[in-house]
Structures are given as structure tokens and as C-alpha cells.
């Protein structure tokens, strides 16, 4: 099956390049680039946690992502770096968000959770100025880390682009990334499709097709993969034809190594005759992870028992011809 192939080849690339996710000395440095250290490691962890949940224990992919999770946890010194980060940057939210990905895979550090709870109780933490989508992510990170969320999810949702059900033709890249993350947070990264309220599910089923089509046309492979993950996180699946078309186009964008470039610009830079592994880590790691994530969710969604999937309303539209 094509979707499974995308998942396998993407995880092949991740496995081959796992050392690039390792935390270097700059991970704790005051002038270190957290977007190049903690962020990729957290994303690796989250995707592996999700793939692990979506694949049965005997599956070779399950084994592979379990090994990657071990690798990632080792990078944090089995969680010891989290309290250390907290002592250095007590009011940063990203360590808790990265930690939450480990916690969802069952890799936990009770001491860190207890000390994080001291900070999340402050008014200052609650009033941190950030994008509404990020706010939702922090609330979910607290919940996943065993901490009482500092606010209310429906209220945070209402302030996001997606939560307001905007005109779908106002969709652009930034709105797209905001909405995919809202769905990831609402569904615990695809684990609980019922976390998507009914009106949002209807809205997404209506408008995912043109968003996917135009992102694929614009060769925005990274956002396309995130939208495919959203499609696989809904209580009811979109039309099969929409998904088949999108997966074919994503599969065709793969390099020989299994890497998927973030955007078409990387493909242009690679030239007409790219080698099997033509992209810089920074230009493909995220999209390749998202492809594996979306493919794992899609494969699991397709395998859900029919009675659950058919609970959907009929997808007919319009008056009979």
C-alpha cells in the first residue's frame, strides 16, 4: 500500500539521520538555537510516540520507533535535562512542550513534573503572551504532563483561526499551520478524533480538499503532510479520492532516501538530477517526520472497525440530479 510505503521510507530516512537529532552542547547554552536543538528532538519524539501507538508491537516499524524513542530519551539524560532547563529558563514554555511529547510515550520524570506545576500556578505563566494556537498547545502539554491545565480549552480554541470557522478562501500558510496544530492539540496528536467538536469536523471535511490541493500545487509538502495528518485525525474520513490523490502526490515528492522536502524551492535547488539524499537536514527533517506521522495515522484510521467509521453521516451533497 502506497501510504505504508511513504511511512516506511520516511522512517528509514529518520533512522539513517538520527544523529542529526542529537542534542549538542548548545542545547543548554544561553545563545543556543533552540529551534535547531530542542524543537527537532521534540518533534522526533512526538512523531515516534504517535507511530508507536498506531502500529502493533510485532510490526517492524513499531520496533524502529521504539528504538528512536530510546535514543531521544537518552539525549535528555533520561529526563534529567528538563529540570536543568527549568532552572536556567523557568518561564520558557518549550521545555514543557517537549517534555509532554516524552510523557505521552510513557517516558516521564516525576521531579520535573512537580517543579513545573509550581510555575504553571503563577499568574505570570497564565498571562504569557502568545498565539492562541500555542496557548492551546501549552494547555495540552500541561495536561499530558500530569499538571492541572492553567486555563480552559474551549476558551483557548475560540481564539484560534480554526475555532472561529473563518471563510475557507482566506486560508494561507500561517493559517494552515495554526489550524493543523489546533487539531493536533485537540486530538492529542491523532489519538482521540472525538476531541474535534462536531462543527469543526464538518468545517474541516468541507474545506480540507481545496486546501490540500492548493498546498500540493504550490509544492508546500510540509503543510500538505500536516493537512493529511489532520484528515486522518477526524471523527469521519474525507472522501477516499481526495486522500488517494494527495498521497500519490506526496509519494512522488520523495527523494530516493525517503526524505520529503519542505517546499518546492529545495527541489529546485537540488536540480534536475538530484542524488538519492539531496536535501539539507533543515530543509527536509520536519516534512519527513510529518509524512511518517500522517501516514501512520492514515493507516490506523483505515484499519479502524467499520462500525466506528460508518457512524459518519452520508457524504451526499445537493439535490438529487
Amino acid at each position: 500500500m502506497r501510504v505504508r510505503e511513504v511511512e516506511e521510507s520516511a522512517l528509514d530516512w529518520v533512522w539513517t539521520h538520527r544523529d542529526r537529532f542529537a542534542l549538542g552542547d548548545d542545547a543548554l547554552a544561553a545563545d543556543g538555537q533552540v529551534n535547531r536543538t530542542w524543537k527537532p528532538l521534540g518533534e522526533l519524539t512526538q512523531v515516534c510516540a504517535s507511530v508507536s501507538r498506531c502500529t502493533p508491537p510485532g510490526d517492524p516499524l513499531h520496533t524502529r520507533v521504539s528504538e528512536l524513542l530510546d535514543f531521544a530519551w537518552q539525549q535528555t539524560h533520561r529526563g534529567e535535562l528538563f529540570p536543568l532547563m527549568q532552572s536556567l529558563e523557568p518561564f520558557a514554555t518549550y521545555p514543557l512542550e517537549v517534555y509532554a511529547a516524552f510523557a505521552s510515550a510513557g517516558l516521564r520524570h516525576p521531579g520535573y513534573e512537580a517543579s513545573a506545576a509550581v510555575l504553571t500556578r503563577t499568574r505570570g505563566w497564565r498571562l504569557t503572551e502568545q498565539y492562541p494556537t500555542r496557548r492551546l498547545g501549552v494547555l495540552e502539554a500541561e495536561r499530558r504532563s500530569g499538571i492541572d491545565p492553567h486555563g480552559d480549552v474551549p476558551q483557548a480554541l475560540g481564539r484560534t483561526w480554526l475555532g472561529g470557522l473563518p471563510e475557507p478562501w482566506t486560508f494561507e500558510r500561517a493559517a494552515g499551520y495554526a489550524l493543523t496544530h489546533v487539531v493536533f492539540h485537540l486530538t492529542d496528536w491523532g489519538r482521540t478524533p472525538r476531541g474535534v467538536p462536531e462543527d469543526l469536523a464538518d468545517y474541516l471535511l468541507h474545506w480540507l480538499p481545496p486546501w490540500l490541493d492548493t498546498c500540493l500545487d504550490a509544492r508546500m509538502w510540509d503543510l500538505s503532510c500536516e493537512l493529511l495528518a489532520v484528515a486522518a485525525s477526524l471523527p469521519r474520513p474525507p472522501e477516499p479520492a481526495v486522500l488517494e490523490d494527495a498521497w500519490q502526490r506526496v509519494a512522488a515528492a520523495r527523494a530516493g532516501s525517503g526524505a520529503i522536502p519542505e517546499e518546492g524551492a529545495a527541489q529546485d535547488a537540488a536540480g534536475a538530477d538530484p542524488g538519492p539524499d539531496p536535501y539539507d537536514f533543515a530543509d527536509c527533517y520536519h516534512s519527513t517526520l510529518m509524512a511518517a506521522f500522517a501516514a501512520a495515522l492514515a493507516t490506523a484510521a483505515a484499519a479502524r472497525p467499520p462500525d466506528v467509521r460508518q457512524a459518519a453521516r452520508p457524504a451526499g451533497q445537493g439535490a438529487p440530479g
Partner: protein
Amino acid sequence: MPSKDKVLEEVTRTENIDIDAVLDPAEPDGVFRDSRECAALALQSGGTSLLLSPPTPRPKKG
């Protein structure tokens, strides 16, 4: 009303124009560009504390 001959002549002339192509146009390529966001005015510059940093020392004259 133009004579039949004249109509025919003009039809022949406008045959040069590929009307069918105009009536059955292919879809133009999509044009994609996202709106950008500039950092808010008077916001600290990229975390480098530009507004707060002391002026660069200049070499003293003579």
C-alpha cells in the same frame, strides 16, 4: 444585413482565430504567495536588544 458572400468572406477571415481554444480554455497555473507579517513597530529587534544596546564606540579624533 450583410450579403451572404460577405458573411462567408468574413467567416473565412476569422477562421484564422482559434475560437475553440478560447471557448475551451486550459486552466492557468496557480499563483501562490502568502501574506507576510512584519514584526510590530518599535518591537525589540530580533532578540538582539538593538534599541537597548549602547551606541557603538567611535574612535576618537586626533
